[in-house]
């Protein structure tokens, strides 16, 4: 444990991870089945028992996508953590300007970041805003509320929210799985622990906070 502590720093608790992965599974299920309908699939993919199964999967995905954050909001102490996504400052602009260089070439021109960097905050913001629209419009379509014309508008909202989320989702997945410098951050959400060196470089402000707390704890113990 002590060795682990030396190279790793705790970033997520178990409830955080369960919430994240439930939403992820729900979103991917709904995404795959949703685009089958949106792009009109092949008839073979949509009809008969397979089609019924796809419809069911889409709804299961939607329910997971909604239930996980709701339970998290009710039970987790970090329920208002999502508000971070709405806090923006000047350094975010600096991050955006420096981002292309960082992600393509590398180098340390990025302003020091908090627990979530500007890009992560943007994705979080998208997930909260468009995820909310996606879920609301989805349930309206599912249960056939309101008039036919209103339904068509909600279908439009459902489509556009889904597309915007999907695009950002691609970027998110790419960065944590494929990007040569940032793919190691995948471990944080998979295990709850982040590489100390990576945390220092990528989330300096947050890392300093965590370190200060660690020092405090150690002093207390000693």
């Amino acid at each position, binding site marked *: 444990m002590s060795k682990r502590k030396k190279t790793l720093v705790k970033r997520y608790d178990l409830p955080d991870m369960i919430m994240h992965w439930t939403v992820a599974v729900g979103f991917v299920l709904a995404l795959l089945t949703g685009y089958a309908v*949106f*792009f009109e699939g092949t008839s073979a993919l949509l009809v008969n028992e397979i089609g019924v199964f796809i419809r069911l999967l889409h709804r299961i995905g939607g329910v997971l996508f909604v239930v996980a954050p709701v339970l998290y909001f009710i039970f987790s102490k970090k329920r208002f953590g999502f508000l971070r996504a709405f806090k923006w400052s000047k350094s975010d602009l600096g991050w955006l300007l420096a981002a292309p260089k960082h992600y393509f070439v*590398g180098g340390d021109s990025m302003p020091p970041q908090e627990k979530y960097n500007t890009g992560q905050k943007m994705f979080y913001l998208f997930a909260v805003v468009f995820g909310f629209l996606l879920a609301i419009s989805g349930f309206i379509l599912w249960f056939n509320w309101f008039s036919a014309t209103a*339904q068509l508008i909600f279908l439009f909202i459902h*489509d556009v929210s889904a597309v915007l989320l999907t695009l950002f989702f691609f*970027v998110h997945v790419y960065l944590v799985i494929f990007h040569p410098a940032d793919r190691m951050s995948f471990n944080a959400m998979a295990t709850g622990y982040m590489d100390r060196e990576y945390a220092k470089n990528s989330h300096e402000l947050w890392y300093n906070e965590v370190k200060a707390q660690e020092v405090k704890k150690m002093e207390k113990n000693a």
Partner: protein
Amino acid sequence: MAKKRDKVILVDTTLCTGCKACQIACKEWHNLPATEFEHVPGTYQNPADRNANTLMLMKFIEQYDKSTDTMDWIFWKDQCMHCTDAPCVEVCPSEALFTHEDGFVGFNQESCIGCTYCSKVCPFDIPRFETDTLTGSKYMNKCDFCQDRVTNGEVPACVRTCPTNCLEFDTWQNAVDKAYKRVEEIKDQYPNANVYGDTEMGGLHYIYVLTDKPETYGLPVEPKTDDLVSFRRDVVKPATKLLMGATAAGLLTNFIVASANYGKEEQETNDDTANGDDKNE
């Protein structure tokens, strides 16, 4: 526009006696179960509305005119109008709805996935659904113009059974001509008489001789396709493909460029041996 040779059903409402034989024939031919009797006060209409098992419904409207102290009793046959420019065909993702070569809107229920898009765009509020507890709408059902009969040279079941020749099966142009001629004949008795279906939605494949204005029947005066249908087809879908392609291309470029650059950096500074496996990608 509808083609002149398209097949069409001409409904001359002045000849209708409200016998409902067409409603029964429709059920019989499509092998659909009876629906629970629904008492609709003050009318012979039953059930109150069409449903997944009642594809067509005789509608009864009583109109009392105080000034002349007369009663007008209107009957009309309500079912899919079979538009030429059918928005339901446009939005159907599984090709369950299609424009038949004879012009009407055919329906293949085995292909229906119950997405309900058709019911959101239909200007006549036609689609009705068999529901399912888990997924809401299981499948849609609507008048299919007796496509199995028509493609085999038979007339639709409702036309076959009509005892008063109120329903006639004809080609599109013939039916429209007949309808206008009929309207001229009945103008004295019904000053508001008009033809419905020749211009609506690019030409319907049901042509009506109505004795009163369409509004009286609850029919839309100017039915049209919602603009969101074409917007979804022409903007949202192509834009989605474009943006997805652009994102994929951007990420792939990033992967190639970043892999090369980060590899170089690592070789130069040699600071992180943990990631050494990825250097030569």
